[in-house]
């Protein structure tokens, strides 16, 4: 293919990619002049270049579309949805022709007369402006498309043309992006080279550690730094926001909603979540398939929705986020959900299992049958609520890239599919441990702490029958001996005589300890996927080469938790383990507390989640400004308050420990004498002896400890905290429904500091009273367990109707098991967050208030 044509194709593909989005935006904002000009320009450019290259078919279609756009732009005609549909059809046709060009180097043959005639009719002002008559006309161009399509689609796309990395595409409207095209192969090669460089650097560092040759150490440090930066840079080139894979979805959903006569809103969150380009490409198709399924089978028709008491507009939600070295993608809808009884019937009819087995299964297990091959036969498509279509194929495709799919569904409330994809290629910090004479890497992001256990005075491993546990502070931690789960040699002394280490790990809400013999260093490792013949071993998430050149396996805490808690690998142990685990979970709720000393008397504590940072500021940097003390902190002045009383600023040299609350330019520092520890404790506050600045006292580690009232201290610094320059900004209004005064005290300052206007009530009944008084909010944050009317009651009352029916609602709860989260979402909460998780709450508020990408 000649270069000119190749350039044209690349350029046109780019233009076309943005065109869909721009047209949809135009449909919503018909008066957006600049956008219309942009669309016109794109089509015009395509037309112009076609003429130059002698592509007559392409030119004629583009020309007809350009005519209509031109009239819109000049204001001669008004933009109508019917017109937009027609232009979209023309764009589709252009895409088909371009695809044909790519495949064969020549314009495919086809008849565009019908399409052009329609476009011309619009240009002549013949088509009525209201969208209603659009429906009967739609099939005509569609049918014509369908006829033209097979010949074109049959030709496989030519990968060489598509190979250049797609620049991060932005919705039309901005200036030219500052990007260049680089062949993917070049990036891949760079990545391989950088990986090698990292490994070689690690080897050098290892050598240097034993050599102690000072002459090399400085340049080696520099080399090491540059390597790290280079590695970050190259990694970034491979990462693309997942939004790139979502680009086509608004259009898809729009078309489906027209086709199916349903009203659908597509809500996309976390579009900026980045993942490896390769993985991105591979999940595009399953994703499209699932969204199509949701629209087609998941959501009901407007009539059915009305009958079910739901809003007529169905929602499809896409959500992406990082979680423990994985990317989690959720595709959900608020439609009819899976019909468990019908699945059961289908499963039995197909002989996939027996009735007796079915009886022992819970709802989730039954739902999982839709992933089974053979379940998705044509009969299943119509008789089960439709979700059987190709789900086994989706599952297979996702598992092929090392991912996993699960779903949760509540009948009448919708279904959500959860896809978990590992970062197949990533460099992570890992802890190197040894068990049974072999070394393993544990990714550090899952490691909470390390505990040395042994014969001495320190903590000991105890046994309840065969299950090993560790009493860690007040918690009973289930232990997983690595030797046992990996079937490593037991002939060397067993773990509980002599010294060993417990790696405290968290998976979801579950804490457990992995028992290892030794702990070495932490090291930056390049995660490489394991060979396909080893992929069934769920204990490993990959393997890597260490600085000394040896190959080691990377442990997957998720896999280990599954294998020990739920899996059948250690069947004998699982029962004891499970009961014991739930005993831990049922215990009183623990809170991480930061212990510190300030002034005389009892030690003080504050829930760790409320503290943004801990700083040790040099005492000489603390300055006196008027009556108060300030410090220059991250480019602005931060007020400092001494907790010990309004005494003198610290004197002499040394560091001043400071607890920093809040973020960015609204930070407040509390000066304390000494930061002592972080401990988990049950917050059982005794309000006796309460004094300003403290909520009361509580027994922590056997000592009476005063709990800081954060709100009080923020109030002290109020002027700085709610600075005037922010006054003119309209703050989003948040309603917080929470019965415990203590939690209100914790949450309100955090949310207020986040820039929200907060109103609080103490139960659901009071909240509804506000609604009936026509008070309006932007978002509601609600506790679950409350007197009078609890969170679930509140959410269903809110969703039933009234002015709050469509408000985002965030559940705040002490219970954060996956089942609770699922129940909360099912009940109508937009999000579900653990108490004390300040950052998650703020992030969620932000998410909820971002305008949904509607189609």
């Amino acid at each position, binding site marked *: 293919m000649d270069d000119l044509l190749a350039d044209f194709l690349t350029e046109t593909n780019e233009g076309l990619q943005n065109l869909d989005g721009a047209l949809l935006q135009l449909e919503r904002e018909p008066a957006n002049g600049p956008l219309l000009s942009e669309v016109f320009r794109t089509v015009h450019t395509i037309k112009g270049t076609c003429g130059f290259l002698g592509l007559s078919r392409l030119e004629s279609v583009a020309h007809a579309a350009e005519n209509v756009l031109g009239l819109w732009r000049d204001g001669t005609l008004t933009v109508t949805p019917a017109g937009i549909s027609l232009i979209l059809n023309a764009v589709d046709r252009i895409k088909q022709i371009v695809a044909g060009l790519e495949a064969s180097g020549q314009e495919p043959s086809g008849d565009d007369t019908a399409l052009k005639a329609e476009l011309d009719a619009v240009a002549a002002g013949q088509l009525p402006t209201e969208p209603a008559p659009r429906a009967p006309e739609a099939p005509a161009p569609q049918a014509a498309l369908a006829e033209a399509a097979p010949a074109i689609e049959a030709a496989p796309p030519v990968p060489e043309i598509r190979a250049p990395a797609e620049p991060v595409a932005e919705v039309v409207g901005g200036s030219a992006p500052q990007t260049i095209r680089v062949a993917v192969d070049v990036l891949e090669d760079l990545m391989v080279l950088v990986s090698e460089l990292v490994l070689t650097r690690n080897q050098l560092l290892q050598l240097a550690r034993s050599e102690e040759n000072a002459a090399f150490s400085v340049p080696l440090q520099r080399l090491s730094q540059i390597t790290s930066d280079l590695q970050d840079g190259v990694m970034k080139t491979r990462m693309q926001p997942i939004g790139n894979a979502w680009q086509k979805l608004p259009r898809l959903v729009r078309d489906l909603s027209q086709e199916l006569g349903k009203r659908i809103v597509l809500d996309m969150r976390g579009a900026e979540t980045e993942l490896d380009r390769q993985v991105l490409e591979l999940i595009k198709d399953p994703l499209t398939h699932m969204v199509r399924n949701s629209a087609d089978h998941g959501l009901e028709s407007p009539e059915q929705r009305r009958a079910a008491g739901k809003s007529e507009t169905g929602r499809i939600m896409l959500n992406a986020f990082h979680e423990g070295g994985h990317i989690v993608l959720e595709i959900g809808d608020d439609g009819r959900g899976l019909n468990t009884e019908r699945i059961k019937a289908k499963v039995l009819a197909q002989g996939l299992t027996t009735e007796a087995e079915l009886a022992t299964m819970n709802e989730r297990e039954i739902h999982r049958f839709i992933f089974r091959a053979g379940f998705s036969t044509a009969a299943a498509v119509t008789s089960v609520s439709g979700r059987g279509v190709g789900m086994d194929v989706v599952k297979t495709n996702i598992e092929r890239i090392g991912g996993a799919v699960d779903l949760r569904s509540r009948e009448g409330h919708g279904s959500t599919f959860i896809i978990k994809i590992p970062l197949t290629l990533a460099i992570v910090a890992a802890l190197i441990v040894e068990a049974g004479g*072999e070394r393993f890497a544990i990714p550090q992001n899952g490691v909470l702490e390390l505990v040395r256990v042994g014969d001495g005075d320190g903590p000991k491993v105890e046994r309840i029958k065969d299950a090993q546990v560790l009493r860690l502070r007040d918690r009973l931690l289930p232990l997983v001996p690595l030797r046992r789960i990996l079937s490593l040699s037991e002939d060397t002394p067993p773990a509980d005589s002599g010294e060993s280490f417990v790696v405290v790990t968290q998976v979801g809400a579950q804490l457990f300890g992995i028992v290892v013999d030794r702990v070495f260093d932490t090291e930056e490792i390049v995660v490489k996927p394991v060979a396909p*013949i080893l992929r069934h*071993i769920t204990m490993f998430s990959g393997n890597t080469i260490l600085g000394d050149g040896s*190959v*080691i*396996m990377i442990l997957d805490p998720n896999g280990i938790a599954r294998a020990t808690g739920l899996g059948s690998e250690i069947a004998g142990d699982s029962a004891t383990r499970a009961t014991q685990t739930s005993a831990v979970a049922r215990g009183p709720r623990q809170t991480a507390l930061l212990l510190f000393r300030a002034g005389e008397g009892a030690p003080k504590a504050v829930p760790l989640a409320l503290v943004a940072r801990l700083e040790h500021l040099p005492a000489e940097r603390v300055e006196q400004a008027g009556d108060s003390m300030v410090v220059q902190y991250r480019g602005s002045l931060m007020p400092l308050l001494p907790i010990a009383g309004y005494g003198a600023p610290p004197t002499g040299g040394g560091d001043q420990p400071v607890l920093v609350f809040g973020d960015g330019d609204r930070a407040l520092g509390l000066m304390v004498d000494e930061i002592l520890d972080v401990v988990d404790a049950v917050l059982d506050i005794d309000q006796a002896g309460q004094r300003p600045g403290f909520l009361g006292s509580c027994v922590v580690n056997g000592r009476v400890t005063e709990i800081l009232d954060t709100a009080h201290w923020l109030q002290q610094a109020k002027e700085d905290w709610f600075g005037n320059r922010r006054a003119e900004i309209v703050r989003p209004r948040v309603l917080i429904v929470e019965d415990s005064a203590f939690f209100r005290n914790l949450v309100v300052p955090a949310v207020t500091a986040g820039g929200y206007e907060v109103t609080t009530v103490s139960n659901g009944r009071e909240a509804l009273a506000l609604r009936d008084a026509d008070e309006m909010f932007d978002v509601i944050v609600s506790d679950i367990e409350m007197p009078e009317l609890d969170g679930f009651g509140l959410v269903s009352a809110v969703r039933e109707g009234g002015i709050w029916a469509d408000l985002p609602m965030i559940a705040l709860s002490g219970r954060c098991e996956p089942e609770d989260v699922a129940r909360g979402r099912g009940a109508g909460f937009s999000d579900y967050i653990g108490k004390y998780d300040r950052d998650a709450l703020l992030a969620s508020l932000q998410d909820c208030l971002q305008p949904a990408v509607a189609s």
Partner: protein
Amino acid sequence: MQQPQTLNTGGPPSRAALGVDAAHMVLTLAVAGQQCGVPVLSVRDVLGVQVITPIPLAPREVAGSLNLRGRIVTAVDLRARLGLPARETGKGAMSVVVEVGGELYSLLADEVGEVLSLSSEDRAANPPTLDNLWRDVSLGVHRQGGSLLVIFDVDKLLALSA
């Protein structure tokens, strides 16, 4: 020389089927005294005794993994794969590195011989009496001088049942 007789019973049809592969060159190796061959086109490297990290819970045939110039290679012990007795302790194995589906694997053999060009004339189908385990992975048997070479299908060698 009774074996050739057995081989001839394989008959011409099978020979024709093998004819396509016959021009391939093979690398010979020895596993527990048996001479074997792998098509040389699939071989990427031949290495001496390597440090091999065992992989817990892996299938019995997988000896572990090793580092080949920054790439991780999964080692499959041919003795275990072919149901032969384990190598005596202290005796290292040679690694024949092959590439399958973009992944590198090392086939652990006792000795590595030479590259031979074999003519299709000398090749025969698997004798019906051949052990099932072997028959699954063998492309055919070759007469080479005074001995017999079993030619392995590398893909099948690496298709572990586990």
